[in-house]
């Protein structure tokens, strides 16, 4: 690794249906908040990284141009990275590489989305090629449901057990979001609510899936020298990992998901983590779907393959459990796609610096953040720590 890098400030918008603002103003809301949190002005920023969904999402084709003003990019170098759902991690990694390389000291990273302005599922459909796969697209629910079914079949997880565990995950995330003033969906649900909700793509129901949100997040990365000088409590980047798979969906086995597994392994290797379940204090996982969240637990080594439902039923991953997952309410309660992966990183940073307010988990020293992109194709992981 290059030189050490820390997150010294974060900012988020109130996520939700933000038709009260035009998109550039939404981005500025997050940028202003991050600068305030870090105690910096625009002149202190050496460069900017932006990430959003592909242009079809909001119909303005080059968001890095559109938001140049809102992210203070005037007269600065700018980079744009798009990896759909994993964008938030990709842009964070890009900011990290930039500072770690020594080519900049302070980098502003911004992720945003305004899903109320376009048609999310239709846009995501365009990720598929038009020759072979697009005809059969059923949006994100179609893909994630197929994956979850394949996983339950492979590991012989009875339908009722999978359903019960997924419902508990929904309850846990919704409860956690009640403590998060930025979250989009802030309503408590019961296991029965989840089991009886409207079917989306069987067995996935309405309360098993994320909302479509408007929101932006900004995070400021700084070199070790700058961080120690200007920040009381930096959140240190301990390890990162990013892996991609083949394009055609059927080519790899998504129930054991190589990219998710290897991305986490690489991040653990860099951070010196051998037993993630024991050593991590919090995990902000990209979790738009409850069933799929369990596949991530297994890929990240929190439990053996096929046993995630058992660990969920034991309460391992809820508040107060051995490894609380998504104390922010996660992607399940807030999903402005271009920002989501970065929000996971920001929430992890808030946890290790004790700044997470009502959603703070006690004594967090090491936190994992993650995001997934494409048709189950890319996975990015970032581990943050309170100590260098």
């Amino acid at each position: 690794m290059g030189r050490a890098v820390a997150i010294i400030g974060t900012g988020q918008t109130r996520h939700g249906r933000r038709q009260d603002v035009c998109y550039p103003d939404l981005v500025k809301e997050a940028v202003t908040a991050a600068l305030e949190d870090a105690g910096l002005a625009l002149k202190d920023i050496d460069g900017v990284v932006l990430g959003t969904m592909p242009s079809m999402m909001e119909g303005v084709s080059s968001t890095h141009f559109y938001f140049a003003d809102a992210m203070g990019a005037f007269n600065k170098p700018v980079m744009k990275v798009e990896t759909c759902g994993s964008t938030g991690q990709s842009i964070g990694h890009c900011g990290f590489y930039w500072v770690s390389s020594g080519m900049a000291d302070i980098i502003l990273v911004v992720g945003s989305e305004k899903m109320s302005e376009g048609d999310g599922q239709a846009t995501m459909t365009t990720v598929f090629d038009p020759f072979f796969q697009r005809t059969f697209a059923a949006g994100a629910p179609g893909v994630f449901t197929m994956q979850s079914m394949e996983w339950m079949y492979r590991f012989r997880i009875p339908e009722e057990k999978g359903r019960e565990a997924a419902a508990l995950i929904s309850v846990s995330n919704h409860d956690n979001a009640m403590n998060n003033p930025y979250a989009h969906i802030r309503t408590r649900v019961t296991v029965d609510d989840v089991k009886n909700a409207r079917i989306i793509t069987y067995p996935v129901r309405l309360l098993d899936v994320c909302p479509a949100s408007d929101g932006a997040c900004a995070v400021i990365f700084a070199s070790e020298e700058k961080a120690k000088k200007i920040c009381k409590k930096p959140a240190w980047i301990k390890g990162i990992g990013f892996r991609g798979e083949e394009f055609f969906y059927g080519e790899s086995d998504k129930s054991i998901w190589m990219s998710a597994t290897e991305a986490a392994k690489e991040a653990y290797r860099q951070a010196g983590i051998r037993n993630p379940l024991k050593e991590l204090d919090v995990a902000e996982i990209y979790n738009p779907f409850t069933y799929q969240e369990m596949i991530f637990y297994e890929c990240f080594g929190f439990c053996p393959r096929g046993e995630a439902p058992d660990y969920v039923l034991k309460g391992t991953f809820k508040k107060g459990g051995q490894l609380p997952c998504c104390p922010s309410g996660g992607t399940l309660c807030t999903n402005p796609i271009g920002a989501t992966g970065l929000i996971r990183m920001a929430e992890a940073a808030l946890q290790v610096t004790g700044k997470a307010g009502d959603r703070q988990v006690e004594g967090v020293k090491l936190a994992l953040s993650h995001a997934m992109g494409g048709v189950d194709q890319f996975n990015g992981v970032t581990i943050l720590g309170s100590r260098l």
Partner: protein
Amino acid sequence: MSKEEYRIIKGQVFVPYELALGKTWSYFYDCLREEKIMGTRCRKCSRVLVPPRSFCPRCFEAMDEWVEVSQAGIVETWVYVNMPFFAQELKIPFISAQIRLDGSDAGFTHQIAGIDLSDFDRVRKTVKLGGRVKAVWSKEKKGSILDIAYFEPVK
């Protein structure tokens, strides 16, 4: 401030495309016209993939050996789609599935049909992970993936 104060502008972006299939995929569609399903084999790892690739995504070697695969295979996974969304090509309800055709080494995206799709509970009894399906061809060939109309479950 009231919500009415801030206006929403409705618009549509319509963009036309003309996409090149290239040599490998053109040949695949030519073969579909003759009711043959073709895959290509990697020179290095020997995997056969459908749809055919011109190069192997894992080895980065040429996949130029053409192999005709079976028209039947097993269901690796499937999903019953009953929700409408903009620009959806198939009419709901439909079943999107990953099918591993005999003779190939990876799943292939298509739909399962030829059965009564209206009752999901009945569908679940017929369509199973690991179950076998076989191709049913469209009478009219248009050079699209729906020249295979669907895959239907077999006993």
